[in-house]
């Protein structure tokens, strides 16, 4: 065999091996009746159950209490001396997007789908899972005033792509204002280079979409009335996505920092008749918390990250608790491949800064985060009927010393610290992708 041919055949072999490795993703496991016994159960909605049990059936929480009616053949997970909480939900993540967080070629991109960049073999999904994260919302970055639509994933690391997507999660879209779009487009002498430009670009896009929506509404009306001659308007993915925003079919998630921006965004939502689901980062909400609460807008915020740019200069670590006390629904999120490995610690800081109760702090990374995603009826607390997404810790999760023992999704253990190697029962080996980058909207950390 010539050298060249040997090389070619080796290349083929490598390609074949890679293909095999990729094809070796695990199948979703069949549901098994499982009972978690003997742990301290932090339900988040109805207090703490000491020495309690949880029965899991068909991947859902079937019973929870001091005792449960588990069948004799149920699989038993002994949680004696451990703490069980709902799986952590990261309401602002850019993990596993294969370096494609921002489509920076234009400030309006509502038709982009983050799912198209989702890299399901990215090891950052695993790292977060080992920190107790079971669900994440993967958002477009903040370069654009109107960014793409989010992908919501469950961290079932080792399964195929489609098996990791959160089934029927509501659609969310990312808006952003302030410094980031200013920097990106202003830096090229394009609009927006100011906050005036920010909101004018946004308003213009919404106006255009409103007209598009009216054209389609008129067409639909004609069809309804039996007009066989009616000609459909040209289909435009960009306008269609924004029209869905105006029709209230998409949750609007807005990246912004300053008090004035929240008020501007609330006013614009009113003007165009859509609802804002949550402000993200939202570091100055403590200044106008009553108004944000009144508008029914939640926040997905950091506890103590600050000072990385001017619009983060007035950030204070008491923001989550002050805002919460004034009626705002507060979630704490990671926005990073660093913090998403220890969101329990970020939540614990809400106790230290402002005196949140343990349950309030836990809610910020579970139920309130679920609300931001619009999946609060399915995950985020330990309640009967919800998905069995649970994390077992070696001690109370709001301690510096807490470690995840097991992360359970839909009733199956996807991370088990006690296992050799990675601790991943469903990962079949082969190369994991993904880098160690910070993976954030705001990569302003100093070079140390």
């Amino acid at each position, binding site marked *: 065999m010539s050298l060249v041919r040997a090389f070619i055949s080796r290349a083929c072999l490598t390609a074949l091996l890679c293909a095999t490795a990729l094809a070796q993703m695990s199948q979703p496991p069949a549901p098994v009746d499982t009972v978690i016994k003997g742990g301290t159960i932090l339900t988040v909605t109805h207090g703490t159950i000491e020495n309690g049990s949880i029965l899991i059936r068909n991947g859902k929480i079937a019973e929870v209490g001091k005792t449960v009616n588990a069948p004799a053949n149920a699989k038993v997970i002994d949680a004696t001396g451990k703490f069980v909480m709902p799986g952590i939900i990261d309401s602002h993540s850019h993990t596993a997007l294969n370096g494609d967080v921002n489509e920076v070629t234009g400030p309006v991109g509502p038709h982009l789908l983050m799912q198209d960049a989702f890299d399901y073999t990215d090891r950052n999904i695993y790292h977060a899972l*080992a920190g107790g994260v079971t669900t994440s919302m993967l958002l477009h970055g903040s370069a654009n005033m109107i960014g793409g639509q989010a992908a919501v994933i469950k961290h079932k690391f080792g399964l195929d792509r489609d098996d990791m997507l959160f089934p029927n999660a509501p659609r969310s879209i990312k808006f952003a204002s302030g410094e980031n779009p200013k920097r990106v487009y202003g830096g090229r002498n394009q609009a927006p280079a100011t906050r005036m430009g920010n909101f004018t670009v946004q308003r213009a896009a919404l106006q255009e979409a409103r007209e598009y929506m009216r054209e389609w509404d008129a067409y639909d009306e004609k069809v309804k009335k039996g007009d066989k001659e009616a000609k459909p308007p040209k289909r435009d993915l960009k306008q269609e996505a924004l029209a869905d925003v105006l029709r209230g079919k998409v949750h609007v998630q807005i990246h912004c920092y300053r008090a004035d921006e929240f008020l501007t965004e609330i006013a614009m939502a009113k003007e165009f008749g859509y609802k804002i689901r949550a402000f993200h980062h939202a570091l100055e909400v403590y200044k106008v918390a009553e108004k944000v609460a009144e508008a029914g807008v939640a926040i997905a915020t950091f506890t103590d*990250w600050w000072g*990385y740019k001017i619009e983060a200069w007035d950030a204070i670590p008491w923001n989550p608790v002050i805002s919460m006390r004034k009626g705002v629904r507060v979630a704490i999120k990671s926005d990073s491949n660093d913090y998403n490995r220890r969101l329990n610690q970020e939540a614990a800081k809400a106790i230290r800064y402002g005196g949140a109760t343990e349950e309030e702090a836990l809610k910020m990374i579970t139920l309130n985060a679920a609300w931001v995603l619009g999946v609060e009826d399915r995950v985020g607390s330990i309640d009967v009927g919800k998905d069995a997404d649970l994390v077992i810790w070696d001690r109370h999760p709001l301690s510096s010393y807490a470690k995840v023992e097991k992360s359970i999704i839909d009733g199956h253990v996807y991370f088990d610290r006690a296992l050799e190697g990675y601790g991943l029962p469903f990962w079949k080996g082969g190369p994991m992708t993904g880098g160690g980058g910070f993976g954030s909207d705001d990569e302003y950390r100093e070079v140390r």
Partner: protein
Amino acid sequence: MRATLTLSKTIATVVLFALPLAAQQSKPAAAPAKPAAAQAPAASQPIALRGGKLITVSKGVIENGVLVMDGGKITAVGPAASVTIPRNARVIDVKGMTVYPGLIDSRTQLGLTEIGAVDMSNDLAEPSDQIMPHMLVEDAFHAETELIPVTRMNGITNAVVTPSARNTLPGQMSFIQLAGKDRDEMLLLRSFAMPLNFTGAQRRRDGTPRYPSTRMGMATQLRQTFFDAQDYANKWAEYEKKNAEAKDDKKPSPPKRDLRYDALLPYLQGKKPVVLTAAEPSDIKVAMQLAREFKLKVILGEITYAHKMLDEIAASKFPVIVGEIYSAPRSGERYDSVYSLPAELHKRGVKFAFASYDSHNARNLPYEAGYAVAFGLPWEEAMKAVTLNAAEIWGVADQFGSLDVGKTANVVVANGDPLELKTDVKQVFINGREVPMTSRQTQLRDAYQAR
């Protein structure tokens, strides 16, 4: 942004040209023998903290203890029953509280940065050259930075301020106290140590590549620089010798002073420590080899991914400024490979301290130590690694790092375990005085909460 950067470079160049003229006459500065705190004025009335749980770090934990501070020093520490509180002391009841030595952050940029994205508020490193040992933190240290009150409210009383790791040799470090009347009172040790960064981040690859744009270049440039500095030292030694022997009318003319080499020489002579900073085993080995060749006095920094060469590190006896332990694992590694590094170092008897490697959130230093406890480091060792070990590594253990009589009264009172996230720091004493428990952040909180 580009335009601003160019402008700032121009200004820096002008200043660089101006400096040597002024400095030419002076001889290389010797290492200061004692931290400046020794001369700081003392508080007038003794303060006694009574009834707290004293975490001395050096001599274990004393339940129901008493600690007395006077003249800026700790004057008594012990069980309540055995300590006599001076009659004129102000007694503060700290029952139910923990009392522990002020924490030391072994690598920050406090005082060199204000707002990350605002270039003009940053003095992190000179970008025009790699070899910048003559850049001195004390020349940029902004004592009034808003970051310091934020940091000290979490019990951090001392820190090693370091230029950013943009250059292999970005400049010399200062050991600071996080309170004081002005910069002179806060800069306890100036130019007392120097980082040597070898992580790959120093390669000049932005825009048109410049030398050194590779690790080969970085290492070679360092070697050449060290040889040149030794050469320079030899020339001066030769001159001094000739000068001493020569008759008055035949005195030789001195060689030209070079600030770079003057700054480097104490390090090449092993008089001051070099902090070899590298994360990957391959880089750590190159840095250690350089250190051996030039007989540097070594402290290791970061060593984030050194799991497979820990025995070699232990054998070197070099102390380590570890971290930050939140760095992501590399491909092929288990999720906790970095979290467990401190525990692995401890098992091998390596002396190490933690550092935040951060500025705005240097306040999270104790939580980093706490997380290392979760992954196997004994709690006592974690406490040491943010106090006494740091003081020992930096050569200031006679004054800092534990609750011991005679040490500077940097003392923290909190409502629980210092390393626990939920613990609230109630009062910080620096140099025996109560530090105001306020910051720009508490002012904002109070202003808006009241509305």
